[in-house]
């Protein structure tokens, strides 16, 4: 019913940096190879996603996400880096990372 207890050091801060969806990942390691901080290391199991070993060294540049051929990566801003925004017409206040966000905006960038 409860999780098993382990003797481990505190989790790093930030905890994650990026997260990799193991169902999408094909184990190509491109994310790992383009990371400036080398924050990911190969998974001991071949073909599985790299392990985010140093999230406290992540720069949140997104290079890993951009180079993933299958879109398996999400950059996760830590909780202390999530700002709010206000809908002008309604005055409603939202914030990055809230539970029931408004529908996503799909406007493409100027590229």
């Amino acid at each position, binding site marked *: 019913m409860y999780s098993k207890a382990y003797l481990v050091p505190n989790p790093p801060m*930030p905890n994650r940096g990026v997260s990799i969806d193991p169902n999408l990942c094909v184990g190509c390691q491109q994310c790992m190879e383009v990371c400036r901080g080398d924050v990911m290391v190969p998974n001991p199991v071949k073909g599985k996603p790299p392990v985010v070993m140093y999230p406290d060294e992540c720069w*949140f540049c997104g290079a890993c996400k951009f180079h993933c051929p299958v879109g398996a990566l999400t950059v996760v801003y830590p909780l202390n880096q999530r700002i709010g925004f206000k809908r002008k017409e309604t005055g409603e206040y939202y914030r990055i990372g809230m539970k029931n966000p408004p529908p996503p905006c799909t406007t493409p960038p100027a590229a």
Partner: protein
Amino acid sequence: MKKAGQGALVAGAGMSLPESALASTNAAHAAEDRQPWPYPVAYGKENVVEADIVILGGGAAGCHAAINAAKRGANVVVVEKGALIRSGCSGGGVDHWHGVLTHPTAKVTPDEMMETIHRLGYKYLFQEYGNGITNYILFNESYDALCDCEKWGVNVRDTKDEFKGAEYRDDVTKLMFAYDYDGKHVVRVKGGADIKLAYFNEMQRLGIKIYDRIMATSLLTEDGKQGNRVIGATGLHTRTGEFYIFKSKATIISTSGPDGLWFYSAELRGASTHGDPNNCGDSISIGWRAGAELALMERVPIGSGGGFGYPTYGSGNASNTYACCNIVDSNGKEVPWVDRDGKPMQTVSQRYHAAPGQKIFWSGHQTSREIAGPALSPDLPDRIRKGEFKLPLYADLAGMPPLERRAIWGLMIYHESKTRIIFETYQKAGFDADKDMLQVMVMPADQYTYTPWGEGFGPRQWKGGFVGGGLLFDWDMRTSLEGLYVAGESNYAGGDHALAATTGRYAGRTSAAYAKTVKLLPVDRGQIEAEKARIYAPVSRTEGLGWNEVRAGMARIMQDYCGESKTKEILELGLYWLKSIKENEFANIHARNPHELWRTVECMSRMDCGEVILNASLNRKASCRALNFTRLDYPQDDPQEWQKLITLKLVNGEIKVGEKPLDYHLQAPYAPTYAENYRRHNRLSQS
């Protein structure tokens, strides 16, 4: 080893320790049967690479240098501690390109701009665009460097006509300008998000050899002597710990400037750090140990180095990437914009235009009215305190005219460094620039001055940012050491992307010309052995302090002894502390793998930077507002006899202090004019 309960391995959360670990009192340093390092480790194993030109640092400056040297027939190698394809400050992108004065509809020529700068008295530096030499290179070559980027695949112009009708868009050239729509000297870089890809691809096409994951650690000199001609460099592989010996005819150092000397916070690094966290002052450390002359090391960047912020440009802002965005309070009341004389402006458009009779303006901290531009009302902090404007403030993107809004959100925010992630993450979270206003972070009232709010504010002890001091250089972008050239922020006068690109391409040409006149020389074994002893000391022990605690400790020393309260006694105490740390804690650092060794060797660079800065600070016996340098014991601001460059270098291991006139580059042995010096040294007409 025992794995975590389920799912993929996650650092920290699931690495369990076998029972033998309990025997050690330091949980982080226990047991041989932890998970082994996943790369083959070979500390000390030597690899030798030869090239005509070795470039240390593969950011914007290093890439432009490499490409231009290769085009002149040089065999080029680039050494990069990260992955060149995305490394450096521009690895996350770039949204604007400064100093573009030679494009078809420019209003001011390079010579006119230089004359203006001189007349207005920017003695030490002009913003972050350097000294006279780098300014002149920038103004003359910025447009050409941008055109190069276009050839390499960066789609800068509005060829799809998406921005047709925008004031900032030139209908003939289809260039889009930022900040100053009349002076037209800053170009918006559409496509900047992937600019490093364009550099990488061009370098591949030219056969330039890129050595990723190798941190440059020292220069090799003729006969191994400090101050002699530079004949190569050494490197440390960040995954395997192997040693690299690069032999070169000419070396270019382009490893940016030191970030994070005054602070180290795992809580706040990363997302709210603007500069590449790998930038730790390697050029200063490496150049210093080889005997190169450094200048302006006492300069303190304006503002804090990083701090209690949100992802850079990931919160509401009024300047820079968000230039002249509407700012409203929580009741929707608009904060006024004023012209350079403090007069409120009536329209959004006016914020992007020069004053009547004004040819050009530069945003940022202008000390001169002639080139000052519009700004958010400077009494905003007072009006917040008095309750007229209610916090939090918001960047009212929804209220901006559509083409200005689109320029900010979608063009600048997307292509500027690290903002593509902001664009994608925030839109996924429901943020719609057509409907929404982005919150400005809540700060103490005095912080709401017209400076980029996007990097947060920090404690006053935290100094940092882009521009401090660095290597002294001449009209060839050559340092005081023969064979060593400098490009980008590593030069003493700093710079941004356009400055990196232009000084890079220039140094690529000049170093290539020099390389044709010299041969490779054998390396000195004694110098190699000394360097190996220096960098492998942390893995010659089996336990000790971690690099991060030592880094935080050194930052503490800089905060206390190299902050606002500078006196001779304080600065000397700072040097005592650093020396003492070197003898004690530093001599007991233990790196548990090549990655930690890499970070530890970066601490060595930071240590050298700290020493140099403290020594430089001791030797400027006057305050200098232009350098953001204050001394309690010498409070007079920039007296005449101190208007010069203070330089330092090592000679046989001893510090030698020197000086140079501020306009050394217009005095003998150089010509008295910029145009003549540029003509003599630029190497443009040679292939």
